[in-house]
C-alpha cells in the first residue's frame, strides 16, 4: 500500500515537474536525465544483474537512433513508431552479437563487445548510401500531429519530455519485473558462477540472450528518442565508446543490480555533466570518472544501494556485485 502511494506520488511529480519549472534548460536537463536513466537501466539489466559487463552498448543506442532516422527520412514513418522499431532492430542486431560474444567470459566478453561496437561504428561511417556517412542525417521538420484536438508544438520541449518519461517509466518497470521474477534470479546466479548455474538446471545461454535482448531493446528505444529529440545523428555522436562508458558509469554510480540505481545515477551524473558541459566540452567525463572512483572505493553498491542499506532494505557488508570486493 505504502509502495503504491510512493509510486503514484513519483509518477505525479514526474508529470508536473516541467509544468512547475518550465525553463527550457531545466526541461532539457530533465529530458537528458530520463534518457540516461533508460540507457543506464538497459546496461544494468545485462551488466548489473547478469554480470556481463558490456563496453559496447552505444551500438544499440546508435542502431536505434539510425533506425528511427532512416525510417522517417526514407519511408516517412513517424518517429514515435520509429522509437519502437529502433528498439526492435537493436534486438535483432543484439542476437548475432550475443552469439559471438557470449562464447567468451569475464574480461574477454567485455573486450569483444568493445570490438563489435567499433565495427558497427565503422560500418555506419562507411555505408554512405544508408547512413550518409560522416555527414550524418538530419530531420528538418517533424510531422504535424494533434493530441486531444491540440496541435503538438515540436518547438517546445514538453512533448519530448513526456515521451521520454513514458519510456523511462517503462524501463524501470522492466527492471523491477526482472528483479522480482525468476529471470532476475537466474541472472544473479550466472553472474556468480556459470557452472553452478548450469548444474541446477539454468539454461545460462538463454538467460544471457534474454537479458541482452531486453537490454538492447531499451537502449535502442533510447536511441530512437535521441534521434527524435536532437534531430541529428552521425556515427561519432551515437556510436562512440564514450557513450558506452557513460552507461557503465551511471549504472555503477547509481547502484548495480538495483531498480532505482540507474535513475539516481542519471540524476546525479547527468546534472553534473550538463552543468559543466557549457564550460568544457567533454569535461563532464572527468566528473563521471571521479565519481566512479569514489563509488567503487566507498560505495560499491552505488548511491542507491548505499541508501537502501542505510534504510535497512539491503543486507549489510556484501557488495551486490564487483568482482573486486
Amino acid at each position, binding site marked *: 500500500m505504502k509502495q503504491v502511494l510512493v509510486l503514484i506520488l513519483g509518477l505525479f511529480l514526474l508529470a508536473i515537474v516541467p509544468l512547475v519549472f518550465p525553463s527550457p534548460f531545466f526541461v532539457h536537463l530533465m529530458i537528458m536525465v530520463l534518457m540516461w536513466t533508460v540507457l543506464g537501466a538497459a546496461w544494468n539489466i545485462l551488466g548489473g544483474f547478469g554480470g556481463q559487463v558490456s563496453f559496447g552498448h552505444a551500438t544499440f543506442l546508435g542502431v536505434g537512433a539510425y533506425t528511427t532516422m532512416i525510417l522517417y527520412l526514407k519511408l516517412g514513418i513517424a518517429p514515435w513508431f520509429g522509437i519502437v522499431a529502433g528498439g526492435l532492430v537493436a534486438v535483432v542486431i543484439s542476437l548475432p552479437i550475443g552469439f559471438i560474444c557470449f562464447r567468451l567470459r569475464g574480461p574477454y566478453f567485455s573486450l569483444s563487445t568493445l570490438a563489435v561496437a567499433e565495427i558497427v561504428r565503422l560500418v555506419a561511417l562507411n555505408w554512405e548510401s544508408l547512413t550518409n556517412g560522416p555527414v550524418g542525417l538530419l530531420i528538418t521538420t517533424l510531422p504535424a500531429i494533434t493530441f486531444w484536438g491540440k496541435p503538438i508544438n515540436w518547438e517546445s520541449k514538453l512533448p519530448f519530455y513526456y515521451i521520454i518519461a513514458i519510456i523511462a517509466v517503462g524501463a524501470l518497470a522492466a527492471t523491477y519485473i526482472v528483479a522480482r521474477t525468476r529471470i532476475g*534470479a537466474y541472472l544473479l546466479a550466472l553472474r*556468480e558462477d556459470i*557452472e553452478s548455474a548450469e548444474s541446477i*538446471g539454468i*539454461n545460462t545461454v538463454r538467460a544471457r540472450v534474454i537479458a541482452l535482448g531486453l537490454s538492447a531493446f531499451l537502449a535502442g528505444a533510447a536511441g530512437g528518442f535521441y534521434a527524435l529529440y536532437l534531430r541529428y545523428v552521425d556515427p561519432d555522436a551515437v556510436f562512440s565508446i564514450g557513450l558506452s562508458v557513460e552507461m557503465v558509469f551511471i549504472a555503477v554510480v547509481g547502484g548495480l543490480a538495483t531498480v532505482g540505481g540507474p535513475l539516481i545515477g542519471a540524476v546525479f551524473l547527468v546534472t553534473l555533466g550538463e552543468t559543466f558541459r557549457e564550460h568544457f566540452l567533454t569535461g563532464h567525463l572527468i566528473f563521471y570518472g571521479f565519481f566512479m572512483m569514489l563509488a567503487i572505493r566507498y560505495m560499491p553498491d552505488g548511491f542507491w544501494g548505499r541508501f537502501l542499506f542505510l534504510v535497512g532494505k539491503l*543486507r549489510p557488508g*556484501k557488495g551486490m556485485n564487483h568482482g573486486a570486493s
Partner: protein
Amino acid sequence: MALLEVEGLTKAFGGLRAISDLSFQVNEGEILGLIGPNGAGKTTAFSLIAGFIRPNSGKVVLEGKDIVGLKPYAITRKGIARTFQIVKPFRKLTVLENVTLAAFLRCAARRQAEHEAYAVLERVGLETKAFAFASDLTLSEQKRLEIARALATKPKVLLLDEPMGGLNPTEVEHASELVRAICEGGCTIVWVEHVLKAIMNVCHRVVVIHHGEKIADMPPDQVVNNPVVIEAYLGKKARDYADH
C-alpha cells in the same frame, strides 16, 4: 530395469584415457559408492554423466533414454543433479537464495520456491543459516549447501562428488546420516568418495575404478578383501604381504 545405466563410456584427453569402456548400473533406491585411487577418473565419470564434458563414445541411459550430448541444465531437468567436489556456492547470495534458485527449476512462483528451499534446508540441517551469506559458511556447511542445492532440483539420481572431503570425523558421521536419510527419502545416490569408512558403512554396493576402468562391482564388505582392489590402492607388494 536399472534407473541409470552407464554403457561403454570412454573419454580421452589427448593421449590420456581418463575413462575407458566404463559400464555400471544404478538401481532405483540404492546408494552406489564409486571409489578408486587418486586420478582414477571418478570425477571425470561424474562430469560425463552430468553432461559437463562429452564422452568420445558410450551411452548414459536414464530411465531408458540416452542422455549423452544434452547440456548440463537439460540433464538436471531430466532428473540428475550433481554436487561439486570443490564447492561452488553463489557466494554473494544467502544460503536460502542459493537453494531457492535451484527450486525455481520445478516451480516458477518465488514464494513457493522459497518455501520449498527452506524445507530442503531443514532436511540438511542448515535452516539456522538460511540468511547467512554462502561465503560465510564453514566448509562442512558449504558441502551441505551443495547437497541442498542439488536436492532442491528434485532429482531422481543425486551425484555426490566427495561430500566428505576435508571434514573431521564428527562431521563425516553427520554427513553419512544425511546421505542415508536422503536415500530413504526416495532419491537414488551415486557417491564418489575418498573417505572409505563412510562409503563402507552407508553404501549398498561399490564400484571401484582404476586408471579409468572398472575393476570391481560388489557389496562393500567384499570390496575391502578383494585382492585386485587392494593391489590398485596399495600396489602389488601389499598384495604379496596379504597373501603370505
